[in-house]
């Protein structure tokens, strides 16, 4: 994977104002990791246009969204740790 400038960790569901703010900030050099209610973004048509979007498997499963995981990369906690280490910065929204 090419360098990750910022890992944006988003746990707010799509209706939350901070979700919109986060999505406005993600750029191609960044990664977006959806956790908690943030995984609901997959059920909308509003995924950002960047290539590296991830979602935490356990949170997808909890919300019955495992079938949508094909649109993004489903990751576990180990990969969440790995992403946070690879990124130059991490912003927890």
């Amino acid at each position, binding site marked *: 994977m090419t360098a990750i400038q910022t890992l944006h960790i988003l746990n707010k569901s799509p209706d939350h104002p901070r979700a919109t703010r986060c999505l406005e900030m993600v750029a191609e050099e960044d990664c977006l990791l959806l956790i908690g209610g943030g995984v609901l973004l997959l059920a909308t048509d509003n995924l950002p246009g960047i290539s590296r979007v991830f979602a935490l498997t356990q949170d997808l499963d909890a919300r019955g969204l495992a079938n949508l995981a094909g649109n993004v990369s489903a990751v576990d906690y180990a990969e969440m*740790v790995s992403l946070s280490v690879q990124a130059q910065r991490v912003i*927890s929204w």
Partner: protein
Amino acid sequence: MAETASESFTLVITGAPYSSQAPQTALGFAQAAVNAGHRIDRVFLYGDGVHLASALCAPPSDETHWPEAWSQFLAEHSIPGVACIASALRRGLVNETEQKRYELPASNLRAPFEIAGLGEWVEGRIKSTRTLYFHAGD
């Protein structure tokens, strides 16, 4: 990109157990970080996150006991857990020192959590290679 060196993390939890997923997500992350050979420098509870340090939680037996799960994890790996004093006192999480200082009827801080100021967070940020925040989702 290979991770060759082990990293150190400060984890800040601002969401309360049973009100948010923050303690659960943070524990999943923390366990994975330790398993990957990284170090958790400290866990800092801020705002509503201080409720994770309560000794008085009695959740139903079929639900995860988050304060207990976190206490066990911290003790097992000798990781300092700190509840921010300003957040804790406002919300009624006190240790024996604060109980005496404020002449309160009881103390309720769960070991091994300690109470300290935001300086612990500042120090963690300086010393750790990464600082992550686990907020409530609302």
